[in-house]
């Protein structure tokens, strides 16, 4: 009898704890809605902090959905004219100095892009979080004066780069402000910190993302967006191999 009384006392508390946070799935869908779009045209700078120097690489990227992406590097001179095309899970790189187009696959996709803290896999991953992960809210926190939910995401498909993610989601703006990316073994592989959040059209979006490869020394790589257009028209020829050599 005592057990039932105890259960009756605890049950409301448990129900209350459950209702403390909103539904994680709904939150993730809203985050996806903010971070992804039908198309994107992004002008950006990648500031790479090496152990000996700091390099800035600028590029323009065109993205359509989660399957098509085209990037052209604009500077510095060494990278100028280098282009990348992603179609589904295939990635081609064009080098103007050799006039060759090389397809990358396998372990090469895990290599760093231009010496940055981003891998080709990171750059290729545009799928919506809701399609890849099961989410649950595990707590709350305050980051830079902003209230966040701490969300834990566990992979529900096998072909993801990171088995587990921990995200700090801005409660009001519904965008991630911080993220930790884990391997299957539980090892922390990367950390990202989003800042300079601005409103583009009707959505909030971070203009600066610091990627830190936890297996490398250094201060990480800053990905700074100078211009972003959502849902702009992008001609089909952009996402063709022919455009690599243009």
């Amino acid at each position, binding site marked *: 009898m005592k057990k039932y009384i105890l259960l009756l006392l605890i049950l409301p508390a448990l129900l209350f704890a459950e209702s403390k946070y909103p539904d994680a799935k709904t939150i993730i869908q809203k985050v996806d809605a903010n971070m992804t779009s039908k198309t994107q045209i992004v002008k950006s700078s990648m500031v*790479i902090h090496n152990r000996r120097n700091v390099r800035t690489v600028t590029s323009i990227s065109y993205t359509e959905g989660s399957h098509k992406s085209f990037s052209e590097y604009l500077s510095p001179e060494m990278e100028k004219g*280098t282009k990348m095309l992603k179609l589904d899970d295939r990635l081609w790189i064009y080098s103007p100095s050799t006039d060759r187009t090389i397809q990358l696959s396998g372990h090469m996709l895990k290599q760093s892009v231009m010496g940055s803290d981003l891998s080709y896999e990171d750059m290729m991953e545009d799928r919506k979080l809701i399609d890849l992960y099961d989410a649950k809210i595990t707590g709350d926190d305050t980051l830079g004066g902003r209230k966040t939910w701490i969300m834990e995401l566990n992979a529900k498909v096998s072909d993801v780069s990171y088995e587990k993610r921990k995200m700090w989601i801005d409660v009001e703006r519904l965008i991630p402000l911080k993220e930790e990316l884990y391997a299957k073994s539980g090892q922390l592989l990367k950390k990202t910190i989003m800042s300079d959040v601005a409103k583009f059209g009707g959505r909030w979006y971070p203009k600066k993302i610091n990627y830190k490869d936890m297996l490398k020394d250094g201060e990480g790589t800053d990905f700074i967006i100078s211009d972003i257009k959502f849902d702009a028209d992008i001609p089909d020829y952009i996402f063709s191999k022919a455009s690599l050599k243009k």
Partner: protein
Amino acid sequence: MINFIFKAIWRDKNRSLLPIMVITIGVFLTIALSGYMRGVMGDMIDQTARFNTGHVKVMTKAYAKDKDQIPNDLAILGSDELTQSLEKQYPDYQWVERIRFGGLVDAPDAQGESKGQGASYGMAFEIFDKSSGEVERMNIPSAIVTGRVPQKAKEALIGDAFAKKLKLKIGDIITYMGTTMNGSMTFENFTISGTVRFGVEAMDNGAVIIDISDARRMLDMTDAAGEILGFSKDGVYFDDKAEKTETSFNAKYTNSKDEFAPVMYRLKDGSDMGAYLDYVDSFASMFVIIFVIIMSVVLWNTGLIAGLRRYQEFGIRLALGESKGHIYRTLMAEAMLVGIIGSVIGSALGISLVLFLQVHGINIGNLISGGTMMMPSVLRAKFTPDLLYIGFIPGLAAMVIGNMLSGIAIYKRETATLFKELEV
């Protein structure tokens, strides 16, 4: 006296045959195994030095920490000046700059599309400058399967297995894709000048060997090098000499907190070879000690049996008035003579086998195919002057010690009981 003893052991085969055989086998095994081990270990050390470590090697402290990852972003800057300084300070060594690099090698088809690609195991050294001796040091002429050594910029030697897999031939183009010293993406087309086979799978599949000037341009490493290797001009690695060089060089940078300050490692402590070197050093002496102990026990036992067999003889000699000391000394003289004969035969056989294996070797190419360890595919023994005594002295010592122990029994004989013992 010697003639007399010689006749005695010659005519009484029971006295000499077994000990001579035991000593011969022991000495033979000591010399043959010592020579073989020295040869094999020496070859592995030599190959590691030539390909990887030099007799001494200079890197930056940061590069040395992660050297297995070939972190060219942490390479030595101002390498030419440092090399000149090393040449001036340590003229006993020949100093050479090298760059190792990883990346991707892609082979295009007729339409320029990828027809195959693989991970590259890149090595760049002075190929065009013949005075460096690098081409011979890296054993390139004998590793070439087809074609020739690169003679001009943008020519490369590639792994034979990789070439066969993609049906590449001399004159075809391959594209290298990798990362420069500054982290930029780099692409370079090379014309295949030849293919090489080293007997190491990783290299045969992905080796890209180019001149260091090409690597410097390609990897943005002007006046930079991943490693500066020093090779003793007499061609032989002496750990004491290398240690002195290492200590003297590193003393200048001990207090430097700059992670890019140069640091020198000698072959022994800059690679896994340290344990091998220690093993080579201790192997011969360890084997000799074991040999002496075992042989002494065996020969002691043989001596005891011989003592029993010659029990009557010693009794008669004592009865005739020969002193115990004299009998003991003649026994020792016999042992020495038997020891010398056994050791000479064992040494001759052992050295003959070592010399044979030094020339012909044992081909283990089939056994190590698929391996990733850098080791020679033909194992050879090596004759060194110490093999002349490394078995001889222990062989002699074992025989004498064995007989000294068993001969003590002579002193236990009582002349008063001799007639009773001899049943006269």
